């Protein structure tokens, strides 16, 4: 939506089709709680935000892109304020910022703990101001149209009728979000199935750094629903079965009186999720009778009033979903899948290798997250790069000619036939829900917080098997109106592609970096061989081909990634060497 607005503002004569398989205000951005990062305080600097991001990403970031990102972040967040976003404020009426994991200084703009909700609704409502934006709500995109090496449109299904429509376009922007639903326990909505990634991939565009999948350390067991990092930013503790703040044993200490950035609970997510795994190995997690192994997120010392003011949604969720009062009881939590760092490979201006195709948001790999995203960088990413994608797409549309409608239509008809045949072909026997269950189970086993060759190999094989079995699916619902049975089958098809890129990229990365951690002899980071982006290319009927691309390094040379007291020391030394 940020991109659509950018196009409408760049040139109101350009027609924009805004397509979404749900009403846009239902997009999963709605669930983001914590906030969006952008330098705000006088004591902060763009330089600090840059270093936190690049270090947090374990040096797998495109540093020139990060530099642009941090410089535009405050501008875009202010723009959103002008559009009405109710950012939380200080007593003197200015926008307030809070602490977030891995960020050295408070720079996360927040709207209570409903930041994503407010960003999304502000953009949705603001988009209604522009007559050139025509929405296709509850339209499901099934494929892109490409001809003469240019992306020239898309094919969509109107979900309410099952009718196909071809949309011709001189520029196409994909902003379909992440793909974490290929895993079992996740913080994600049912719509987060990686469709856009798979569509671009099948048109020959590389999916970059797909092995990097972020686990969020504090989620509700079983459902995976998230307790925002802001719980820790506001001073929550993580304790094991002995009531001990175990993070001090994992290079994040020593204990502080107050929450301190980059220390303890405010360390980066990958480290916190990994610490959980080791605690579990040591038998120091709590064995909950129905929820399995958990640790406790303890907010009790913050007091009821403060919790209601700063974390109202969390309060409500704990009460409704778990039947407990966070002012009186600690909350059982464990890690769950949360974010896909990788995505459609695009350059710093959001352009993919297929001309006319752009991507922004979680589906894209523009290069700011590297091997591990810092919380609150991605909401800002939507705004900064949504705008870039819109501006570039508008520029491209004005400078290119319309395509050949007749041959595009032919292509669109072929797409329609392929997609319809999923539903109409006789004699299938595989159930979608069964295939999906096997996929998510296998991804969790093979591509979890820690990875070893043997289980990754098993996952790769399982996925190939599922690809085969998918050919034999049976869709029970044969109707046209609102056929979600059929649409989920199309999603599963995409998910299998995306899962394959993740598993194969993972098994090929023989090192440990950021969110990709191995326990089978590759425990260290290996900058000699793997300071590289992985790129997965589609191979029809086969497994993805994995290639490697260079990382753009400008001013931050790879160093040890350290937090807590050790991190502070390293910062001092870096500063020392600069002057």
């Amino acid at each position: 939506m940020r991109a659509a607005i950018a196009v409408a503002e760049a040139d109101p004569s350009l027609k924009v089709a805004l397509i979404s398989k749900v009403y846009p205000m239902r997009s999963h951005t709605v669930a983001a709680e914590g906030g969006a990062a952008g330098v705000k305080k006088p004591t902060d600097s763009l330089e600090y935000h840059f270093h936190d991001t690049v270090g947090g990403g374990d040096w797998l970031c495109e540093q020139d892109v990060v530099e642009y990102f941090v410089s535009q972040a405050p501008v875009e967040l202010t723009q959103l304020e002008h559009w009405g976003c109710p950012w939380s404020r200080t007593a003197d009426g200015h926008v307030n910022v809070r602490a977030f994991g891995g960020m050295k200084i408070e720079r996360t703009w927040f709207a209570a703990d409903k930041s994503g909700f407010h960003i999304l609704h502000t953009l949705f409502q603001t988009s209604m101001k522009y007559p050139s934006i025509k929405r296709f709500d509850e339209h499901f995109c099934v494929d892109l149209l490409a001809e003469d090496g240019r992306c020239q449109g898309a094919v969509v299904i109107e979900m309410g009728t099952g009718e196909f429509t071809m949309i011709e376009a001189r520029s196409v922007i994909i902003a379909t979000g992440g793909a974490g639903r290929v895993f079992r326990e996740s913080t994600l909505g049912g719509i987060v199935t990686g469709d856009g990634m798979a569509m671009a991939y099948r048109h020959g565009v590389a999916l970059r750094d797909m092995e990097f999948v972020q686990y969020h350390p504090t989620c509700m067991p079983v459902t995976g629903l998230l307790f925002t990092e802001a719980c820790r930013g506001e001073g929550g503790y993580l304790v094991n079965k002995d009531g001990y703040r175990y993070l001090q044993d994992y290079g994040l200490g020593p204990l502080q009186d107050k929450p301190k950035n980059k220390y303890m609970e405010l360390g980066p997510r990958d480290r916190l999720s990994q610490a959980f795994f080791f605690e579990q190995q040591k038998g120091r997690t709590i064995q909950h009778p129905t929820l399995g192994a958990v640790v406790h997120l303890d907010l009790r010392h913050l007091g009821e009033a403060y919790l209601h003011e700063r974390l109202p949604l969390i309060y409500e969720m704990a009460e409704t979903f778990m039947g407990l009062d966070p002012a009186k009881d600690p909350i059982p939590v464990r890690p769950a899948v949360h974010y896909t760092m990788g995505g459609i490979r695009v350059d710093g201006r959001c352009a993919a290798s297929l001309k006319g195709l752009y991507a922004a948001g979680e589906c894209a790999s523009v290069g700011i997250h590297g091997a591990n995203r810092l919380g609150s960088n991605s909401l800002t990413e939507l705004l900064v790069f949504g705008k870039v994608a819109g501006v570039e797409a508008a520029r491209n549309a004005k400078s290119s000619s319309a395509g050949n409608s007749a041959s595009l239509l032919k292509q669109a008809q072929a797409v329609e036939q392929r997609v319809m045949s999923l539903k109409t072909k006789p004699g299938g026997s595989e159930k979608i829900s069964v295939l999906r269950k096997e996929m998510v189970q296998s991804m969790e086993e093979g591509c979890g917080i820690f990875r070893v060759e043997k289980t990754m190999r098993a996952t790769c094989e399982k996925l190939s098997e599922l690809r085969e079995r998918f050919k034999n699916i049976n869709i029970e619902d044969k109707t046209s109106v609102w056929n979600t049975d059929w649409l989920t089958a199309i999603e599963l098809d995409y998910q299998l592609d995306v899962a394959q890129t993740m598993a194969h990229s993972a098994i090929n990365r023989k090192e440990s970096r950021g969110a990709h951690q191995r326990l089978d002899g590759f425990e260290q980071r290996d900058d000699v061989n793997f300071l590289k982006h992985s790129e997965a290319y589609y191979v029809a009927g086969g497994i993805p081909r994995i290639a490697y691309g260079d990382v753009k390094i400008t001013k931050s040379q790879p160093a040890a990634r350290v937090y807590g007291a050790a991190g502070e020391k390293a910062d001092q030394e870096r500063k020392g060497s600069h002057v």
Partner: protein
Amino acid sequence: MSDTKKIIEIEVLRYQPESDTEPHLEVYKVPFSDDMSVLQGVQYIKDNFDGSLTFRWSCRMAICGSCGMMINGIPKLSCETFLRDYYPNRVRVEAMAHFPIEKDLVVDLSGFIGKLESIQPYIIPREARSLEQGEYIQSPEQFNAYIQFTSCINCTLCYAACPQFGLNPDFIGPAAIALLHRYNMDSRDGAAEQRMELVASEEGVFNCSAVGYCSEVCPKHVDPANAVNINKTNAAKDYFLRFLSPKGGSK
């Protein structure tokens, strides 16, 4: 995992437009555990008994606003309503009242979306401000004047609760009026007058018969009834002032 020995009966209002002439109820026996929501119950039916069962959902955490249904006759978000609260009785799940049914539990929301669009739900600045000038300043009082009305998730439960909307589908209704009020009360906005015309129009606040059920069912404590009420007073005042000054204008 939790024990799944218990079985609850879920009665679902089914309607397949391509084969059914009218909606009918069907009963399914669903094994459940205490942490299972009604939404998970219907998902279980779809995955295990009938893949054609259709309903909207996404976030599972009561924030996307997709999963509204009538549950034992009361409009609720199915993802935050739990089966344990109905067991051992049967629970009945139906499409949201007052909206045309498209299929099973999916209703036609295009009218509602049109209403949102009609109220100009965006800041029309009172005073232009450039990005270089930074954010607008809002005092805590100014902030508190509208913040409550920003929490609407567009779940439309309040419409399913509103008897007047049931009688007159053109009534712009609780959530849209609450959103209108949200922008009118925002110190950054200067278009309240424009929006007041709609408030006082035939589709506007005077449709409301002050039942207040909308606020009761609202899962986000938006209190749309309050927004409607305030605007009734404003519209009446507006009308009165217009009457006094032939040039029109409310201030």
